[in-house]
């Protein structure tokens, strides 16, 4: 068991609303091959996809699984974004399924909450959802070089993480992402939102096996320090959570939400194929996540980028 300061953390309510899919999301966006394409996938209630599903291959861009929430008032919205931590409990506080509970599984343009199917059927756009935020300030007492971001004590416990004999933090991950693939979001704070890894080089993504990642996978990013910003630093390691789906826009791809980062090589990633929060937080059963080897890992939408040639 990792020693933490979790007993000193303060648990606070923050809130948002099930946020509608916005009209401007239907404008043409340009794929990395220079094609105009409409795209869906962000905001609203997603009836078809949950954390645990493939991150690639859907006819969608930046697919946000489950329910996307935000708040119309800036102060409330920023509190929601900065304080909601991965693995926090959510409760519906208005509407037809008031009282239903879910779990925070991501943060992108919206905070993403996973609900069981019976709640998804009852939720409506505009329903109020409250988060019991807990995790800001979390420290690993035996790993002072490791910085946490948006990591709830519950998710920390669910990580396959331990202290090695030489006092490094070993963390089980599904895959490792090289720093040169880290893209959109380098200009943003790791305490606010995710950073995409870039999938425009489809051969490279397939070579590294990254096209088999699932929403909810725990991954390592090599040579990236995400302490107080996001950048290349040789030997640094960042542990993140895959929170949204692939994208056909240049410099975009599935989102990596930072959880842990060490500038000084204090994190050692090890392979752990089942390190997915849908399983480790008990949101879904393993049979729902069985891999289908026939899955098409690139949607026709994303493929259109490769047909653009020059």
């Amino acid at each position: 068991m990792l020693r933490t300061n979790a007993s000193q953390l303060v648990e606070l309510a923050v809130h948002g609303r099930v946020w509608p899919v916005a009209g401007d999301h239907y404008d043409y966006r340009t794929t990395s091959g220079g094609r105009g394409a409409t795209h869906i996938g962000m905001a609203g209630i997603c009836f078809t996809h949950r954390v645990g599903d493939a991150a690639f291959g859907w006819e969608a861009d930046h697919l946000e699984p489950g329910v996307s929430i935000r708040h119309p008032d800036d102060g409330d919205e920023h509190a929601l974004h900065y304080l909601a931590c991965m693995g926090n409990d959510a409760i519906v506080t208005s509407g037809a399924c008031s009282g239903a509970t879910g779990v925070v599984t991501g943060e992108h343009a919206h905070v993403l909450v996973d609900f069981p199917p019976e709640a998804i059927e009852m939720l409506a756009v505009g329903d109020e959802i409250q988060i019991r935020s807990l995790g800001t300030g979390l420290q690993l007492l035996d790993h002072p070089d490791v910085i946490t971001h948006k990591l709830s004590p519950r998710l920390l416990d669910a990580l396959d993480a331990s202290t090695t004999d030489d006092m490094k933090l070993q963390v089980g991950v599904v895959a490792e992402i090289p720093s040169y693939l880290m893209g959109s979001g380098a200009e943003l704070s790791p305490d606010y939102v995710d950073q995409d890894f870039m999938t425009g080089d489809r051969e490279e993504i397939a070579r590294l096996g990254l096209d088999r990642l699932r929403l909810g996978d725990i991954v390592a990013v090599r040579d990236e320090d995400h302490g107080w910003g996001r950048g290349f630093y040789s030997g640094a390691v960042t542990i993140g959570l895959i929170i949204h789906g692939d994208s056909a826009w240049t410099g975009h791809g599935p989102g990596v939400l930072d959880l842990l980062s060490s500038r000084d090589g204090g994190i050692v990633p090890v392979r752990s194929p089942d390190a997915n929060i849908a399983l480790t937080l008990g949101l879904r059963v393993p049979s729902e996540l069985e891999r289908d080897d026939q899955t098409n890992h690139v949607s026709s939408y994303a493929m259109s980028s490769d047909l653009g040639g020059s």
Partner: protein
Amino acid sequence: MSDNRSQLVGVAVQGSVVSPQLPALPASPYIIGADGKAVLLPAPGGIVYNVSIGDSAYGWLADMVQPGVSIAAAGGANNALRGLACVGNEAIVVSGRALGKRGAVTGKSGRFAEHVILHFDREVLEMIALGDKILVRAIGRGLALSDAADVHLKSMSPRLLDALEVGASESAGVTVPVAAEVPGSLMGAGAGLTSEAGCVQIQTDDRAALATHGVEGLRLGDVVAIRDFDCRWGNGYLKDAVTIGVVVHGDSVRGGHGPGVTPVMTAVGGRIQPQLVAERNIGELLGLKTATGVTA
């Protein structure tokens, strides 16, 4: 090489000289470096008197210093200003004490600044005030090389294209002399954003990596190549893509940040072949009076 410049349409876009921006009270004025240290430094924008095109991109006690004068417009007009202004375009002061004085577009800054960056001679700089209106004679959008249609030109004025001495190559599409080659692996902030209206930044937190790749001596205005980086329709990693750009602003202590490069030319599949030369700076190439005599 021949091109389609006779078909281009020149239009006026305009902005005002912007003040540097700091957060409103009671927010903290500090920026946080990659090492976690809070510092208060001049923010990008405004009128910068003592840093010019031709000076070092490193070592200044400022966040992403933009040499010369930075302008922006309100609302959608800024999208037009940033989208249509091309590096090398002529800028004309249309209000204030420097009325009628002429300068040149040297670059564009990225997300959260979103300025067009202009060079003026030192004596003109002394006369310009924050808020002065400056018109840019925007020409260059649509510019293409007749014999290398797969080489995409971005924010490239005919004047800059002439100065770059782009050569035809049988093995590659074109050759371009550059002051440095930057690996795509060092590119940070700006990835995933537009390649038409801003810049993408060379990450400098890992100083040893800068030395390894020979990019620790960059100057503002340097013409550089970025390897394995595609800027055709946005900025992102792609093996064998090459982008040619201009260093437009200075270094930053922020993680993922550093000198900004505004793309002017990009192609996939090795169709641009950079040629490393000792010096390649738009100050000299465009005949700008640059030397401040100051080094960081």
